[in-house]
């Protein structure tokens, strides 16, 4: 990453404080920048910012830098960082919050398959109550990069051959139970 200079006035400390109120983020301000999270993270070498850098940016209130990073989307929510952090900060939950805000503020990288997958997944669950792995992946590919479908074909065939590819779209009986979803996500998050 290029070295960039930020000024105090660009920091949004108000925003940073929100993280300390969420479950897992209470101890954000006690981060000692030890880098244990980055060391534990199996994906840090593929990220543009390491988890430690993301935590530093969040804590100081550099909102856009944190929200625009690819790091938050590469995070596989494996909790390795959270388990190892000596200050008991749930970095994973902070990443989740950043993902949600990036989607809501439209700051995620366009055609980047991960946020697209997340949205397709939720859409399917909201309508049916269950997700079909096949259809979610299929729709994600169409919306991000249709060419990957060719490379997926071979794996698809292997799964079909072994009876592991289900094309069924299931639906739960009491789908009305899920009416809380739009309301809950508007009101509480």
């Amino acid at each position, binding site marked *: 990453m290029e070295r960039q200079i930020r000024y105090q006035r660009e920091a949004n400390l108000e925003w940073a404080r929100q993280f300390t109120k969420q479950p897992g983020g209470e101890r954000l301000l006690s981060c000692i920048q030890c880098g244990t999270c980055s060391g534990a993270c199996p994906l840090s070498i593929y990220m543009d910012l390491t988890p430690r850098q993301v935590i530093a940016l969040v804590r100081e209130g550099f909102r856009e830098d944190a929200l625009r990073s690819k790091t938050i989307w590469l995070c596989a929510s494996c909790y*390795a960082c959270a*388990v190892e952090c000596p200050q008991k900060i749930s970095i994973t939950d902070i990443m989740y919050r950043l993902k949600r805000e990036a989607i809501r503020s439209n700051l995620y990288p366009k055609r980047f398959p*991960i946020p697209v*997958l997340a949205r397709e997944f939720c859409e399917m669950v909201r309508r049916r109550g269950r997700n079909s792995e096949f259809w979610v992946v299929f729709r994600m590919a169409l919306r991000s990069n249709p060419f990957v479908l060719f490379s997926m074909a071979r794996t698809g065939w292997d799964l079909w051959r072994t*009876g592991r590819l289900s094309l069924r779209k299931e639906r739960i009986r*009491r789908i009305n139970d899920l*009416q809380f979803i739009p309301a*809950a*996500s508007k009101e509480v*998050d």
Partner: protein
Amino acid sequence: MEPPAKYLYYPGCSLKATGVAYEESLLTTLRLLEIPVEELSDWNCCGATAYMSVSEASATLLALRNLALAHQAGTKDVLAPCSACYLTLRKSHELATHYPEAAKDVERFLEQAGLPRPDSVRVRHPLEVLYTDVGIQRLRELTVRRLQGVRMASYYGCQAVRPYGEVDDPHEPVRMDEVLRAVGVETVDYPLKTKCCGGSLTGTIHEVGLRLNYILLKEAQRKGAQAIVTICPLCQFNLDAYQREIRKQTGEPIDMPVLYLTQVIGWALGGGFRELGLHRAISGRKLIEQWFTVKKEAETYV
């Protein structure tokens, strides 16, 4: 701890599709152990990691609906074999019980859907059931066949042994090795046992996903394992389904069986090849056939 009278099985989406062999082998194993189990009626998707990335409140409620249904059914123990389901269900339960503010919202929304608060429900994992409820001693007694001279690496993946979970120690888990050894399987030291497989990354940022799985397979090989044993449908899928591609990219002859713990245990307890879903493997099929096909006269009873 007194083992429960009955488990309510929460399959989640994977165990009905790519992970169907996990369902088959789990149900067969429980049958052989004479443990009553029933599928949770009208269960919905747990939301996995994707829903949490879009809306925390909805994700929590989505997961909690399942526990509320279990509560209504009068069962205390919900069995969630998929690591992502297991963690998501437990996490939502904890949010709703330990964070008063979240709990208030949860209660309000659940009430609107006519659902109870699922306070008394416990979310359990098959490894816990085998290790804690059944126990090593009983597994040893019930073993009817042994895999001779096969070395396996027990692989936990990430979410089953992270915060929220009670499956095993997050730093140095050992229960899977103990369970495997109880039925006579030799296990190797596998330092990557809790390193994440990348989850859905193989489908999104494919190159990165492949690399993570290559490292896991390679290290198992280096430690002398002939197979990897998993407890999560996503781990199994990633490690099993992409070996062809990994071979092509790296030029290395990797063709390693990736089994479910319940397949190995179920077989040792006397389960059949197909009822344990062993025919559904993609990689290492020859070895799997060689190890698990029972030739009547050659069978080694213990």
